[in-house]
C-alpha cells in the first residue's frame, strides 16, 4: 500500500499543473467569498477574479521555456501550453472586465459567474497542456460544462436558455463522437497518451492504413472541430453566440476556441502525425468550407452578435489554414492569430456591450446608425476592431492573417491562400456595413443610455492597444509564438 502511495506521489509534478491549480484554488476561494457576499453585489468578486487571473498569469509565465511534464504523462506544461494559457487568461480577464456592469444591467448580478469563468479557464489550460486524451477530454468537459451554464446563465431569458440547451445538446452529441474516436484509437494503439499513440504509429507504420485508426482519429477531431466551430460542425455557433450573454459570447469565441485549437494541434501534429496527408486534405477542405460559410452567411445578418458569430466561424477557418500548412510557420501563426483574435473580437464585443440597451435588442445594424457621431470614441474603437477583423493593416488582424497565409504559402498551398484572401474580400462587405451604419448614416438615436464604465473601458483600451501594437510591432509576440510552436 505504501508502495502505491509512493508510486502515486512520484508521478506528481505540481509545477506542471501549477497555473491551473492556482486558478482552480482561487476560483474555489472566490466561490466561498461569493457565498458569503451580499446578494447582488458582485463587483468585488469580479475584481478579485481579475486578481486571481493576474496571479495565475504570473505563475503561468514562470513556465516559459521551462517545460514541465508530470502525472505519468498526463500533462506537459510547455511553451505551447503557456502561450495558449495566456491567451485564455487574457480572454477571461477581458471578459470579466466587461461583465460586471453588464450583469447588473441585465439583472443577473450573480457572483458565481466569475468562478465559473475561472473554471472554464482552468479547463482550457488542461486542454492546452494535456498530453493524455483523458486529460484533454476532462479539460474539455470542465470547459464545456461551465460554458453550458454560462451560455444559459440568464435563466429567465428564453434566448439564453435556448442557447445553453443547444450548446449542451450538440456539445454532448459531439462528445459522443469524440469518445468513440478515443476508444478506437485506444483499441488500435493500446494507449490514450498522445505521444504513446504517435510512438505506436511510428513503430507500426501500417497503423496509418488501419481503418479503425483513421476513423478513430477523425472522430476524435470531430470533437475539437465542433469546439472551434469548423463547418459542418459550426451550426451551434450562431445560435449559441446570439443567445448567450454577450461577454460569454465574446469569451467563447476567444478563450475556449483557443483551447480547442491547442488540443486540436497537439493531437493532430503530435498524435496523428501518421495521418498527415489525410488530415491536411481534410483541413484544407474544412478551412475553405468554414470560412466560406462563415463569411457568406454573415453577409445577410442584421443582428450584430449573430454576425460576429458567423465572423468567428470564418476566423476559425482562417486559423485552420495554419493547420493545413502543417509547418512551423503555420502552427505558430495559429498561436499568434488566436491571440490577435482574442483582442479584436473581445474588443468588438465590449463595444457592443456598452452600446446595448437592456435585453440588447438594439444590437442590430440599424441600431448602430450614427454611432460614430454620437459616441465618437466608441465609434473609432469599434472601427479599429472591425478593420482588424477584416485583416487590414495596420492592425493586428492583418499581421495575424499574414502570418497564417505565409505558413500556407510556404507550404505550397497557394490556392488555399487565394481562397482565403478572397474570403477576406467577401468579409469586407459585412464588416463595412457596420461602419457604413456608424458613419455614413445619420444618427436616429442619441445613445444617451450609453455610459462608459471603467472596467469595460479598460478592457476596450487593452484590446485597442493590443490590436494596434500587434499590428505595428508584432515582432516580439510573433517570436514568442514561434518559440511556442512545435
Amino acid at each position, binding site marked *: 500500500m505504501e508502495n502505491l502511495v509512493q508510486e502515486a506521489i512520484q508521478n506528481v509534478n505540481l509545477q506542471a499543473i501549477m497555473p491551473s491549480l492556482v486558478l482552480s484554488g482561487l476560483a474555489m476561494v472566490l466561490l466561498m467569498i461569493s457565498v458569503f457576499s451580499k446578494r447582488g453585489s458582485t463587483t468585488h468578486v469580479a475584481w478579485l477574479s481579475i486578481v486571481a487571473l493576474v496571479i495565475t498569469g504570473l505563475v503561468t509565465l514562470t513556465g516559459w521555456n521551462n517545460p514541465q511534464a508530470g502525472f*505519468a504523462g*498526463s500533462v506537459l506544461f510547455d511553451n505551447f501550453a503557456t502561450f495558449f494559457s495566456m491567451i485564455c487568461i487574457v480572454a477571461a480577464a477581458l471578459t470579466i472586465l466587461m461583465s460586471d456592469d453588464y450583469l447588473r444591467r441585465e439583472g443577473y448580478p*450573480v457572483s458565481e459567474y466569475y468562478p465559473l469563468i475561472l473554471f472554464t479557464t482552468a479547463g482550457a489550460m488542461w486542454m492546452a497542456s494535456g498530453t493524455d486524451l483523458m486529460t484533454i477530454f476532462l479539460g474539455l468537459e*470542465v470547459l464545456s460544462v461551465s460554458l453550458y451554464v454560462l451560455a*444559459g446563465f440568464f435563466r429567465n431569458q428564453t434566448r439564453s436558455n435556448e442557447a445553453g440547451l443547444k450548446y449542451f445538446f450538440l456539445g454532448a452529441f459531439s462528445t459522443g463522437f469524440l469518445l468513440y474516436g478515443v476508444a478506437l484509437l485506444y483499441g488500435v494503439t*493500446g494507449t490514450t497518451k498522445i505521444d504513446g499513440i504517435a510512438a505506436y504509429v511510428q513503430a507500426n507504420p501500417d497503423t496509418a492504413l*488501419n481503418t479503425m485508426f483513421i476513423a478513430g482519429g477523425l472522430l476524435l477531431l470531430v470533437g475539437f472541430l465542433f469546439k472551434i466551430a469548423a463547418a459542418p460542425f459550426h451550426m451551434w455557433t450562431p445560435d449559441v453566440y446570439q443567445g448567450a450573454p454577450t461577454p460569454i459570447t465574446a469569451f467563447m469565441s476567444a478563450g475556449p476556441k483557443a483551447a480547442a485549437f491547442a488540443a486540436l494541434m497537439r493531437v493532430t501534429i503530435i498524435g496523428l502525425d501518421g495521418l498527415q496527408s489525410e488530415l491536411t486534405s481534410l483541413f484544407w477542405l474544412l478551412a475553405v468550407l468554414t470560412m466560406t460559410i462563415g463569411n457568406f452567411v454573415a453577409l445577410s445578418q442584421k443582428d450584430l452578435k449573430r454576425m460576429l458569430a458567423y465572423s468567428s466561424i470564418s476566423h476559425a477557418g482562417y486559423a485552420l489554414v495554419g493547420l493545413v500548412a502543417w509547418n512551423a510557420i503555420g502552427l505558430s501563426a495559429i498561436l499568434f492569430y488566436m491571440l490577435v483574435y482574442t483582442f479584436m473580437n473581445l474588443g468588438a464585443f465590449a463595444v457592443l456591450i456598452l452600446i446595448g440597451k437592456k435585453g440588447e435588442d438594439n444590437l442590430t445594424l440599424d441600431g448602430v446608425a450614427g454611432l460614430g457621431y454620437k459616441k465618437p470614441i466608441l465609434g473609432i474603437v469599434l472601427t479599429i476592431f472591425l478593420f482588424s477583423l477584416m485583416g487590414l493593416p495596420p492592425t493586428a488582424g492583418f499581421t495575424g492573417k499574414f502570418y497564417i497565409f505565409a505558413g500556407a504559402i510556404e507550404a505550397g498551398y497557394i490556392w488555399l491562400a487565394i481562397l482565403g484572401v478572397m474570403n477576406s474580400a467577401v468579409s469586407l462587405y459585412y464588416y463595412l456595413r457596420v461602419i457604413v451604419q456608424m458613419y455614413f448614416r445619420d444618427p436616429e438615436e442619441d445613445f444617451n443610455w450609453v455610459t462608459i464604465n471603467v472596467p469595460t473601458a479598460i478592457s476596450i483600451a487593452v484590446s485597442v492597444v493590443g490590436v494596434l501594437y500587434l499590428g505595428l510591432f508584432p515582432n516580439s509576440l510573433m517570436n514568442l509564438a514561434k518559440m511556442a510552436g512545435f
Partner: protein
Amino acid sequence: MEAILFYLTATVAIISALFVIKCRNPVNSALNLITTFLCLAVFYIMLEAPFMAAIQIMVYAGAIMVLIVFVIMLLNLGLAVKSRYSHGLAGGGFLAALTLLVTVYFIKFGEATGTGGEITSEVISSYGHTELIGRAMFVDFLLPFEIASILLLVAIIGAVILSKREV
C-alpha cells in the same frame, strides 16, 4: 454458453435501446434505457470488469436515471407529449444507416491492434479488479481524477445557479 448469453443480452440491449426511441412516454423511454444499462452491466461482468458493472448500475441506472425520471415527473411531461418525432425521421434514419455502415465498415476492416498489455485474466483474478482500477486511477490517472472532481463541482454550481428561481 458465453455466446448465448452475449446474443441474448445484446438482443435485449438493442431492443430496449430501440424502445427508448420509440416510446411515446418519456417515462417508458427512461425505463427502457435502464434496461439497456443493465444489459451493459452484464457485458461488463462478462468482460471481467465487475467494478465497472457495479458503477454502471449505481451511477447510471441509479443516479443519472433517477435524476432524469425525477425531472420528467417534475415537469409532468408524460402527458404533454404531442408527437414523438421531429420532421427528420427519414433523413435521420438514412443518416443512422450510413453511420452504421461506416462504423461496421471500420470495425470489420480495421483491427484493434494495440494488444499486449499486462492485464490478463490471471492478473485480474489475482489482484482483483477493483484494486487494478484503483491503482490505475491514482497512480497513472491522478490528474484526470482531480479534474473530474472540479468538473463535478462546476456541474453542481451550474445546476444550482440554473435552477434557482430568482436572482
